[in-house]
């Protein structure tokens, strides 16, 4: 589904991604872990098309197409979804209105009939259950005055409504208490399917107790320095990122 080859990207004059290689197939869950500043969020944003970053080398093939040539909205319509680490508050834009416009833009692109208000509401009610979201939030401006947990739930709820093929969760667990984490993780698990792939970006192993990945990748200084299965995350938790840092700086192969 997704093939990232030798991806380099910079922000301003600062090279952040320095040769990422990663292949993801439908149905797989990939966890990307790494210390602060390793390039995790940059990878998420480059995949969704954020213009603040400049891709300087490499390519990304998504469903056989050149992803890097697509605009932000084209990627979304083609089925890429980014759950934000810091969801944006947008005063004055009603959540229901926004989500209906988004869903219909996506449906139109996929050749599906646009939903009317009735059908949309029925869909929304069903999807809200997945993250136990309060319906009152729908009538509020996007994320405005939402708690941290509500914002993250809202992200997963939007993902449920938009039904993406590739979901990128950028530190969805950060800042959540254990109850909120469980609700969010359950929501993500409910959306797991054979057709859908997920990239779960996280700083902490804790999330992976709830969302079990097929693969774990460790990102350091803009490169994936180690890949493995779930055990890798557990070892990393035990030994800490500083240990990886030491090995990389000594120019040694990373062996856990």
């Amino acid at each position, binding site marked *: 589904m997704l093939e990232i080859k030798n991806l380099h990207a910079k922000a301003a004059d600062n090279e952040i991604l320095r040769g990422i290689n990663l292949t993801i197939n439908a149905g797989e869950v990939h966890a990307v872990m790494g210390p602060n500043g390793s390039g995790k969020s940059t990878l998420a944003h480059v995949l969704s098309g954020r213009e603040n970053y400049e891709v300087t080398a490499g390519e990304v093939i998504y469903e056989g197409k050149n992803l890097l040539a697509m605009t932000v909205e084209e990627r979304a*319509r083609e089925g890429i979804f980014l759950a934000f680490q810091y969801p944006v508050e*947008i005063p*004055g834009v009603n959540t229901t209105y926004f989500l209906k416009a*988004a869903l219909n833009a996506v449906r139109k692109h996929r050749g599906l009939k646009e939903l009317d208000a009735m059908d949309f509401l029925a869909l929304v009610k069903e999807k809200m259950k997945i993250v136990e979201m309060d319906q009152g939030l729908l009538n509020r401006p996007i994320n405005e005055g939402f708690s941290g947990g509500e914002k993250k739930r809202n992200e997963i709820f939007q993902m449920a409504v938009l039904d993406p093929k590739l979901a990128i969760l950028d530190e969805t667990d950060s800042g959540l208490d254990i109850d909120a984490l469980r609700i969010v993780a359950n929501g993500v698990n409910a959306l797991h399917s054979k057709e859908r792939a997920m990239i779960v970006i996280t700083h902490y192993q804790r999330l992976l107790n709830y969302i079990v990945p097929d693969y774990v990748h460790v990102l350091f200084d803009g490169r994936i320095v180690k890949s493995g299965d779930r055990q890798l995350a557990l070892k990393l938790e035990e030994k800490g990122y500083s240990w990886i840092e030491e090995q990389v700086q000594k120019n040694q192969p990373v062996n856990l």
Partner: protein
Amino acid sequence: MLAAIMNSTEAKNLYRTDYSRLKGELAGHGEAWIHEIREAAIARFAELGFPVKRDEEWRYTNVNAIATIPFERARYDIEGLAPDTVGRASLGLLETSQAVFVNGYYSAELSSLRGVSQDVKVGGLAAALNEGAEWIESHLARYASYRDHAFVALNTALMQDGASVYVPPGRIVQEPIHLLFISTGGKKASVSHPRNLIIIGKGSQVTIVENYAGPEKGNYFTNAITEIVVGENAVVDHYKLQRESDEAFHVATLQVCLGRSSNVSSHSISLGGALVRNDVNVVLDGEGGECTLNGFYMVSGEQHVDNHTRIDHVKPHGTSRQLYKGVLDGKSRGVFNGKIYVHKGAEKTDARQTNNNLLLSLDAVIDTKPQLEIYNNDVKCTHGSTIGQLDQDAIFYLRSRGIGVESARRLLTYAFASDVIGRIRIDSVRAQLDKLLAAKFQKDS
């Protein structure tokens, strides 16, 4: 189509000659009181001349274009109306409470006032003046000051017609009264001086919509004045929608005088015109008056819009709330100058003023100047203004959900305007405005 250019002395003389030639035929010409006011106003205009940059109140608005075009006096030109102009400008309001003015002149044939009860008088000012109605004499030109505003002086000297509205005490007028001003914008650049007088009796309640419309193109000049006198305990909801031709000049003063415990909301929406100046002056002349001034302006291309407001708190326990918001695109330019003046005797005044601006392009410019002048210690006053751009993070967020970049920008611009637009209490006007904004967006992008 641009007419010959004069210098401003020639322009001044042109209007003075016009006045000398016309004074024997202007509305109410037989009445000494109005004749005296007109004489004083034209004399004052001759002294003032057109404002220039060094006049503090005109620092950011250059009216040279108005001063140098020899406008002809506009005529009642009903043949010049494009078909269905009235229908298209109707805002979805009831046609039975609608007074229509063509180039500033009341049109009995296009107006329908069947829905307005008999004792509420709505019609043309010229007719009311010529009839010698007593309420006209006691109020007309007694509020908007021609002493320090050249365009007010010009209108006062040369006014011929406009709307007259009289609501007797104790009436609740259910349907909004729609005053529709249509300019035809003929081949030659023309000027009209609509003059409106609105008197609201004690304890009455009314909604008034002043709606200025014109053709898409056409070089003309509307120089309007509206005086509203609000009786004790009366409630007035006033709307002004300005969408003149792209080439038109629009200079207007709204002068409101509030009686004791009365309540006025003013909504001023400015979308059209090449050069627009709105003065809104409110005097809280009785104890416990309350006024809300809402404003929205959206300009693009090379449009220039200037909103000057002044609120005078004269008596104790007055409240004023002001929110003006502007969206500027292209090379447009905006001015907001909001003054709150708290007089010595106005204890317990509570005044709040906000002006927020959204710049959609790098070339758009806004000059915003909130001013407080307070001559009383026992008051609560705040003011503030902001200038900003669309939030790039918000645009990215919307796009990342599949919404196109233009739609995202539009959505966020609506969101910016939504609180001030949401304060419009007439559903059909609000709905119509949504459409107008969407159309304006389409045109600009």
